[in-house]
């Protein structure tokens, strides 16, 4: 069994290493084609990316990506494709910011309320797609994409000086800023401050791991993802699972905007960033829906993005990083599939060997083909 575990770890490492080598090679080809030196580019990125300031930026962005990746991954584990994390976190952050600006509460309490509002709004927004799926059979892929647009529209409509918005300073429309005592303090390190919300993100990762690996609910969820028919026969109510999983996914999605809202912007302005939900999909794929994998994926994603800031100064178009990110996701998906097949064949070989051994002793062989 020991040997088996070691081999499993070996196989687990093989895939990402293989993937990163392939991704680096393909990115180099892209760089060469565009007339740049791969070595020079990688070197510049590495140098800039390891500056303390960049590291802080990388970790902060990775915190956001990590939450987004977790939100997507929960759904993936039961074959539920929540493409709507993007809309869910925007609408959640918006309403959380509105509550944070209007509610008069002591700072720490207000922070908790704001976070809860974000979770509830995110979950409800995702819940619409879940209800449509279980009552009307609407694919969650379609409905969540549409809800992204609707959510964006609602936020844009409400973020108006005559409604829930105000004008601060220049012409920027924003929600009423949160009071200063509700600023979530950061963790000061060399090079800047890390979002305090990183603690919550880590806690979410641990909760995700416990929920999926150690609880009955998690077992039902994974069983549904592996084989819906088997899960149903085992007594899982797929409808309930769809609703619950979507609510959890949307709830986590609601947290995506929080590091920014509580840590730096303290209000939801028109320039509140979008698109983190889609990065989350790529990061969940990169991390193979594993909480540690997603963390590494989020860090890599964020590192590529941050370190690319230097490329314009080096005369390399920084859009090259988008190619790198895409190539990395592809390589990872393919590498893991290869390793998965290899390890399955390995297992079958071992079962076969076992059968032969027992056949030799018991005299009753069995030769069923694979």
């Amino acid at each position, binding site marked *: 069994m020991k040997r088996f575990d070691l081999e499993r770890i070996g196989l687990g490492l093989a895939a990402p290493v293989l993937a990163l080598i392939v991704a680096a090679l393909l990115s180099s080809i892209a760089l060469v084609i565009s007339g740049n030196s791969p070595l020079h580019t990688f070197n510049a990125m590495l140098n800039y990316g390891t500056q303390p300031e960049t590291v802080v930026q990388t970790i902060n962005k990775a915190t956001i990506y990590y939450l987004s990746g977790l939100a997507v991954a929960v759904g993936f584990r039961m074959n539920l494709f929540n493409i709507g994390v993007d809309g869910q976190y925007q609408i959640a952050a918006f309403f959380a910011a509105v509550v944070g600006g209007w509610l008069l509460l002591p700072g720490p309490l207000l922070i908790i309320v704001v976070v809860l509002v974000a979770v509830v709004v995110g979950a409800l927004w995702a819940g619409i797609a879940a209800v449509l799926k279980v009552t009307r059979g609407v694919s969650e892929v379609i409905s969540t994409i549409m809800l992204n647009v609707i959510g964006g529209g609602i936020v844009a409509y409400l973020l108006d000086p005559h409604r829930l918005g105000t004008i601060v300073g220049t012409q920027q429309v924003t929600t009423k800023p949160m009071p200063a005592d509700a600023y979530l303090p950061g963790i000061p390190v060399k090079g800047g401050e890390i979002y305090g919300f990183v603690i919550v993100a880590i806690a979410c990762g641990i909760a995700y791991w416990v929920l999926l690996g150690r609880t009955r609910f998690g077992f039902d969820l994974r069983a549904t993802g592996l084989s819906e028919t*088997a899960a149903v026969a085992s007594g899982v109510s797929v409808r309930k699972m769809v609703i619950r999983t979507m609510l959890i996914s949307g709830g986590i999605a609601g947290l995506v905007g929080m590091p920014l809202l509580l840590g730096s912007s303290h209000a939801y302005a028109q320039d509140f960033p979008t698109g983190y939900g889609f990065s989350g999909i790529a990061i969940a794929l990169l991390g193979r829906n594993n909480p540690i994998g997603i963390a590494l994926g989020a860090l890599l994603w964020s590192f590529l993005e941050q370190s690319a800031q230097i490329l314009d100064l080096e005369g390399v178009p920084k859009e090259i990083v988008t190619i790198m990110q895409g190539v990395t996701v592809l390589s990872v998906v393919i590498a893991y599939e290869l390793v998965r097949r290899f390890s399955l064949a390995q297992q*079958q*070989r071992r079962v076969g060997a076992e059968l032969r051994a027992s056949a030799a002793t018991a005299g009753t062989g069995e030769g069923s083909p694979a």
Partner: protein
Amino acid sequence: MTSAPAPARATIAVQLRGITKRFPGVVANRDIDIAVRAGTVHAIVGENGAGKSTLMKILYGMQKPDEGSIEVDGRPVNFSSPADAIAAGIGMVHQHFMLADNLTVLENVVLGAEPGGFGRLDFRAARRRIMEISDSYGLDVQPDRLLEELGVGDRQRVEILKVLYRGARILILDEPTAVLVPQEVDELFGNLQELKSEGITILFISHKLDEVLAVADEITVVRRGTTVATVLPADVTARRLAELMVGGELPSPETRESTVRPEVVLDVRGLTVRAEEGRPVVDDVSLTIHAGEVLGVAGVEGNGQAELVDAIIGLRPATGTVRLGDRDLTDLNTRRRREAGIGFIPEDRQRQGLLLEAPLWENRILGHQSQRPNVTGPWIDRAGARADTERIVREYDVRTPGIDVAASALSGGNQQKLIVGREMSGDPVLLLAAHPTRGVDVGAQAQIWDALRTARAAGLAVLLISADLDELIGLSDTIEVILRGRMVGTADPRTVTPEELGSAMTGAGGTAEPAGPDRAGAPRHAAGTVAPADGAGSGRHAAGGGDAVPPDSGPGADPDLDTPLPGRQGPGLTGTGTTGTGDLANDPDVRGEERP
């Protein structure tokens, strides 16, 4: 029936020598030697998992042999893809049809081999060719019908035509009768004779011995991946073939001393399940199973058995009541019903019984997610589940190197032993066993039977669904016959023969074919998936077209036929007016009028 004097009797169409194919861990084929004479039907028989399919995949170029040679029409060939095999004149008719429903027959046939050129489709020429082929082989195909309008038999002819259209002279038919009703089987055999007389060579893969004996000119038996004998049908009986297939003594499922106790475990009243369009697929079924009793349900597949089991476990909405002991389960969901003490061996173990990619110990939890030793409260008890998986592996002899391998790595028989062990865990009071030994090897079959017998002796009530009549007769205390969703009669397994049961199942009173030559006085046997091993009278052939063409009220229709008492003793089929065979009534519609 016997080897017809084919035009080119001496020439060998396909010669396989020393074919060996290894898969990770298992040798699927080893030293296969087969010579197929041109213009004959050559049957390859063997149990599920004996290596027939692998062999055919090698011959069709889907897999490359590790060793050995293939000659087609005397020329050595080396296929690296089905395209090579097609070029050499070999065509394959798959068990599962590869046809597009929304296209016409014509379009389906030309798909992938479109006539004409420069982007233009020459349908006129194609239609001419199709009609030529259809006429010369008597396939009776209408090129302009939409595929979705066609029945299964017609679709199969389209598949055959498709292969012939591509110039095949050697046809591989992989389990062609598995999807056909008896009448269509007869039609298919007629088509095969026609093809043969036109010089086409046919390789017929099957494990249904009566069919093989009826259609083949020569039979090659495959066992554990190798060829064990090639025989002429005239020289063997079904029983001898079955023995060649399983290699020795056929195991027996028989249990005779009754362990039935008075207390009622399962009580189903007026259960009705409707198909989506409203037609009842289980129609007002009532049944009772006592502790220590095995109730077997006999029926041609598709007569409501699967739906009955689904309704009892709560997978399908139904009307009527289901009581387990003194508890009413009617309004409970599947999980609550399982918790109440129902074990469930589903019909399709890979789709419903297992998480193929998950390790064995997680599969131990499946279906028992809310029960010890798998969980404590909301938490999974990994140690408990793992320890109990070790116990199942040990007690049920699941052949595996450990409990961390994925379920998909196990062979079918070992997967099933794991499922049986799991469903027997936690002291169920009722076991729903749908085809518990289908597709498993003989050794595993005997072990599963043993497990069922032991549990029955300990007071377990079992609802047994099986297509293997010998298994049903051997294991059951009572047999109920289901036909078009209704329970149409009760049989006493101590006296009923597979032939009688077979004709009762089809509602075709008295139309069963005569029993096989070695039928009389022979002890009952089951040969695993060989199902009707005891002569042409049982199983598929006994159906005699009954399902497709319901006869009018059979001669023995008995107005008093009513739900008989389980465990009731009596000769043969209770509910028949006479004790003779095949007189059981018949058309449920007729019976329906006679009901109160």
